[in-house]
């Protein structure tokens, strides 16, 4: 697909802030499934690029002096290929690292119990089928509910509540993979949807998150538990990390400003 992406994030503060700084992970990663034709990230502040430890193409944006809003604008074109959700194993990141637990993906008894029947059948079904079973079990158990959770929810909480957003699904999938003994990681990115009529959960939510599991001799296989599918050419990968915190599109801090209001508009079009 040839996808055209426009992504605007506006932060408005209730009073002027004196200094604000953000880490932005808003540039697609170079990989085998996507080719970046053009890409720009702009903010009102000074913008410098850097690469984080996971190889994500990041920026740091700094705005000094009194300001009441920060607008982060992203525009670009990406050509995507359908690799049936599989990416090659060697991308510079050691898979074993992704067996680690984080605050978001911590195992608890609920998760262990939830994954146990899937794990029991794992040796019969093979890894890829088992991972599909995990994905579908999450989709069936944790209903997608837009805006239902805040971004600081954990995998365990999502399972207990029985509802969540794409972040929760991804975290729960990663935690489930650890029960299975498979490395898994968090991906943030964009999702192109035909529209609401297609009935997909992700429709209208073009800013998305999913997970990738490492399958020996195959590579990193993507699983989008919110939609119950592996990634296709409708997916654009921005950043990977252990969890939301490491991959989130914008992470910022400021001096002053009081409360903030954030609005996000994302449009992903197929030519």
């Amino acid at each position, binding site marked *: 697909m040839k996808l055209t992406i426009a992504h605007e994030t506006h932060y408005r503060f209730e009073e002027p802030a004196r200094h604000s700084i953000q*880490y932005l992970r808003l540039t697609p990663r170079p990989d085998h499934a996507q080719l970046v034709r053009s890409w720009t990230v702009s903010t009102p502040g000074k913008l*410098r690029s*850097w690469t*984080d*430890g*996971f190889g994500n193409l990041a920026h740091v944006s700094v705005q000094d002096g009194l300001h009441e809003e920060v607008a982060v604008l992203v525009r670009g074109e990406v050509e995507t290929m359908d690799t049936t959700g599989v990416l090659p194993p060697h991308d510079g990141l050691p898979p074993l*690292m992704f067996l*680690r637990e984080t605050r978001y993906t911590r195992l608890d008894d609920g998760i262990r119990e939830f994954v146990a029947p899937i794990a029991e059948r794992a040796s019969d079904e093979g890894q890829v089928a088992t991972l599909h079973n995990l994905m579908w079990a999450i989709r069936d158990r944790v209903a997608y509910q837009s805006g239902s959770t805040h971004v600081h929810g954990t995998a365990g909480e999502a399972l207990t509540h029985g509802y969540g957003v794409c972040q929760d699904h991804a975290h729960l999938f990663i935690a489930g993979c650890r029960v299975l003994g498979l490395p898994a990681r968090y991906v943030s990115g964009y999702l192109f949807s035909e529209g609401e009529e297609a009935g997909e959960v992700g429709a209208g939510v073009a800013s998305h998150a999913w997970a990738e599991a490492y399958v020996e001799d195959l590579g990193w296989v993507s699983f989008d538990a919110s939609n119950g599918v592996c990634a296709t050419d409708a997916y654009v990968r921005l950043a990977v990390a252990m969890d939301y915190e490491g991959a989130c599109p914008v992470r*910022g801090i400021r001096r002053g400003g009081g409360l903030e209001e954030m609005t996000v508009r994302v449009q992903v079009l197929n030519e």
Partner: protein
Amino acid sequence: MNGDGGEVRRAYQAYCEWLRSVPPERLSEKHQQADILFRRLGITFAVHGDDDGVERLIPFDVVPRILDPDEWRTVSHGVSQRVRAINAFLDDIYHEQEILKAGRIPSTLVLNNPAFRPEALGLDVPRRVYVHVAGVDVVRVGPDEFYVLEDNCRVPSGVSYMMENRETMMRLFPDLFSQHRVAPVNHYPEVLLRTLRAVAPPGVSDPTIVVLTPGHFNSAYFEHAFLAREMGVELVEGQDLFVDDNTVFMRTTEGPQRVHVIYRRIDDDFIDPLAFNAYSTLGVPGLLSVARNGRVTLANAVGTGIADDKAVYAYVPDMIAFYLGEKPILNNVPTYALRNPDDCAYVLDHLEELVVKEVAGAGGYGMLVGPFSTAEQRSAFRTKILASPESFIAQPTLKLSTCPTLINGELVSRHVDLRPYVLTGETTTAVPGGLTRVALRDGSLVVNSSQGGGTKDTWVLEG
């Protein structure tokens, strides 16, 4: 102090003669004077876990710990060798990971370890130095047999005591220093400054260096201030620095000034709230991006904790062989990793003989010293170990060397260790001396100041 046959070790011979010539009360007097000197200097130490929160003096003992030139040669070459290997290891595991591919260290032990920081993957640092300052804890268990207990590679502290102890001893016993040729330690800040200058970002010939402290509530704040003053550089807190335009700046009365090298005494977790602990107010938002772009040098670098992890420690001799092609000069204490079921079973059967340590523990907390433990303590540890074996390691109880120590006006023998400070810039060197810690309780092997240990001046005799 004494050798196996009870004879006085060579290094102590002159000191012993002097000791025989002075009346015992004189030492006690000096001890009191030392106390006053330290209080005046304000050298105190906040002890964790104390309810009263009062800062107290680390007890100082007026009897020096003395090393002869040969002993020091062994120790200094040995600790330098370890630090060279550790720097090579850090460069490797944050890049090509050859040592893991070669199977010399189990991959999971490194990659699946919270001390391995993905944030440092691919991080390039000047001169490939990650650990600029290390404090390697060494003990002597036989005539020339030294063991390393720990390689402290994160933000090792205590060096100010090395210097203040010397200062105090020179004031109290000027006569002793005229009788002994003791290697000086007071140039440590100079060597530290030279080290930090040597690792400035490429192309910077006259770097601005700062010491970054968590602030005056930190137990080592005195040391941070001391080192900044001695080096003639600014002591700053996180809020004094900011990031803009791919650069770290310090706020000054004359406006922002670029900073090139940060000797940071803040742990990784708190150093950049946008990359690590989001609630940290101690660090500098954006710092990681500038460091990764090579525009500021952090000393020590982010992610060095993996090298002094208690489980990774067991592999330092392998690192020395793998990277340097050398034989280890200093011994490693044999270490049982309790994540191995065989080791775990052995340790549970021999708790009375072994020292059990929490992998993530520090400062002598979370530690069981088998021979000095009660049945209750052992049973509590057994429960903890069974719940999470991978969180523990165990080591045989070493017979640490002893040194005469003045307790209640009497000279008695107490166990000691030694922490030499190893600096790496253009080269790797250990400043002759270090911090000798002494277990003040009779028979105790725990020398940590947080556990009632004291310190001594450490003399390296010049040959």
